[in-house]
């Protein structure tokens, strides 16, 4: 008798406790919201500005950003495409805008999760550096603010969203990094990788169902083996064969494994491989970078502004900086190819010395369509495990 009423009492108390805590959690961050609304009188509100003209020119944008005083960035590793120097240059140019860098090693999925879970909070990320699939899905979910940077017209049409909710910023080619101090003949193509002399030597930068560069590696291998953007299966089969022959090692290549010599051949973005070459000069690692001749695949990362950015003007200023000649050349210095490289080459504003240091590649990059990319990913998620185990 007692126990049944006791049970009910306990249940009620517990639910009450849980509900109180839940509502408390939900209520707390609301205070913080709306502190950065901007006070545009005749001008457009910063959060609604779609180009620098809405601020009355760059000075107006700088003034509005300095008034906000802060910028939240996420997922920008200092040793990735020169992001460390880019943040320093921005801070030096606009000392009144403080950069709050969060979780440098976050993935695109983490960034989108941060946007969603911290909607309306002052610590939500302002700007996002995303893999193309997440830029597209985020735009479809209406998470980004449309904004056309000054250089908008110079971004190739294939590399931007027509509504300016995201656009590509920097990227590179799938490349084969190789430690010439350990490997007598460095492989130049995917076909080379299958040779018996590379047994136990070939690695990817992670698992292609998770890592963007490893996914690019499989895509490039598909193109090298009679596949297409719509058909990634030959790439999966190629790595399946490498696994069987013992050439492929599933360990994720990192600066540590490269330096140790555990991943003497690593398929990765050319800007990361070129960075390793610089980093490990004189440490017993002679890192050579080759863009495979048979499977050329380029991929760019995209920038987007959080629609509910707590610092809407600062986020737009950051975008203007990234797509300025200065910002684009900083990426180039990190061996990444900025999206405005063709335009800047034509205009003669490009850092020519940095261009000569890039791994050589023929032709212009092609990009898969949204549907092709989705199909390739679905195939990969379904077939990768089986091919590799």
């Amino acid at each position, binding site marked *: 008798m*007692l*126990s049944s009423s*006791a*049970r009910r009492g*306990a*249940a009620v*108390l*517990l*639910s009450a*406790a*849980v*509900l109180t*805590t*839940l509502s408390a959690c939900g209520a707390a961050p609301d205070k913080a919201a709306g502190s950065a609304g901007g006070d545009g009188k005749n001008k457009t509100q910063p959060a609604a500005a779609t180009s620098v003209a809405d601020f009355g020119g760059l000075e107006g944008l700088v003034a509005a950003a300095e008034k906000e005083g802060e910028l939240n960035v996420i997922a920008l590793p200092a040793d990735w495409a020169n992001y460390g120097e880019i943040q320093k240059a921005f801070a030096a140019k606009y000392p009144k805008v403080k950069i709050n860098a969060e979780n440098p090693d*976050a*993935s*695109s*999925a*983490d960034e989108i*999760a941060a946007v969603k879970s911290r909607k309306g909070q002052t610590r939500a990320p302002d700007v996002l550096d995303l*893999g193309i*699939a*997440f830029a597209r*899905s985020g735009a*479809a*979910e*209406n998470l980004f603010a449309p904004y056309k940077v000054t250089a908008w017209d110079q971004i190739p049409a294939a590399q931007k969203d027509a509504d300016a909710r995201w656009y590509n910023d920097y990227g590179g080619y799938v490349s084969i990094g190789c430690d010439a101090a*350990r490997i007598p003949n460095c492989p130049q193509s995917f076909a080379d990788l299958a040779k018996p002399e590379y047994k*136990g*030597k070939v690695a*990817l930068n*992670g*698992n*292609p*169902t*998770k*890592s*963007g560069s490893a*996914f690019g590696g499989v895509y490039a291998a598909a193109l090298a083996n009679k596949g297409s953007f719509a058909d990634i299966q030959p790439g999966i089969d190629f790595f399946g064969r490498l*696994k069987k022959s*013992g050439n492929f*090692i*599933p*360990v*994720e290549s990192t600066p*540590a*494994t490269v330096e*140790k*010599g*555990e991943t*003497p051949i690593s398929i990765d973005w050319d800007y990361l491989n070129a960075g390793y070459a610089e980093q490990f000069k004189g440490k017993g690692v002679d890192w050579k970078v080759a863009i495979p001749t048979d499977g050329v695949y380029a991929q760019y990362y995209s920038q987007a502004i959080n629609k509910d950015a707590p610092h809407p003007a600062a986020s737009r200023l950051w975008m203007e900086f990234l797509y300025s000649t200065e910002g684009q050349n900083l990426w180039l210095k990190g061996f990444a190819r900025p999206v405005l490289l063709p335009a800047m080459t034509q205009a003669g504003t490009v850092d020519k010395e940095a261009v000569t240091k890039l791994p050589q590649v023929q032709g212009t990059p092609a990009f898969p369509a949204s549907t092709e990319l989705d199909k390739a*990913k679905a195939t*990969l*998620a*379904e077939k*990768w*495990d*089986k091919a*590799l*185990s």
Partner: protein
Amino acid sequence: MSASTTLPHSTGTAGGSTTRRRRRGPRTWLAALPLLAFTALCFGVPLGAIAFGAVTRTDPVSGATEATGEHLARSLQGPYLGSLIGSVQLSALTALVAGVLGVLIAQAVVTSPSRALRGATLTASGVLANFGGVPLAFAFIATVGISGVVTQLADLTGLGWNLYSFTGLTVVYLYFLTPLMVLVTVPALDGLRPQWREAAQNNGATGWQFWRHVGLPVLAPSLLGGFVLLFGTAFAAHATAAALVGGSVPLVTLKIADALSGNVLTGQENVALALGLDMIVIAGLVMAVYLPLQRRSARWLR
């Protein structure tokens, strides 16, 4: 909205099942209330969120949420099912091997007259049982990886050794699971009184007969508990495997990480939650096997 309406149900059942135990008198549940509230908050709320996410779908554009069995179905198909099976196989194998090794080492330590050996073994076990994740993976890579020191010296590759495989992963897991087993079985072995062994010997029992009829039955609950602990530890391990084998040994924790925080697959969050729910169910099943067995063998100890 719908999240908050489902929560009272889950906490309600949690409260109900705990008060069903009436052994200690009618009013004692009051004293347990803080613990129950804590448990409900720290386990009930996340569990509710996982279960809710696993069976619903939110349309990204309209924001409408509807119930669906699609995520759970997908989590039990194709590569996801393969990863669940892979995880169970790896956990069961490593827990079994580490369990046997751990008991043998613990028995050697307990019966050894050297106190220094006992102290050293227990200290080392305490340290090694907590040595996991990426540091452990890298230690193995540097030692017995393809260009590792020992691999080069002893030509392990020629002998068929490959660190980046199911076997390799098993060895790495044993490295932290065996010490854990030593830690949990030494107290149990200490409790095995020497008089019992002497009594058995006086009655003409062989060593084997002593263990078969006295030692193992008495130890069974602790050994089973140790096995369940090892299984759970191996089942939930993620970082070591992620650094070592990437996607080439399918494991459910790796799949969840791929789906939740990747740069490639989009919109997989709910499948990850469904996989999490599957893991909880499997852990629950293991406990469900363990509890009645433990109760049965615990009779010997009264």
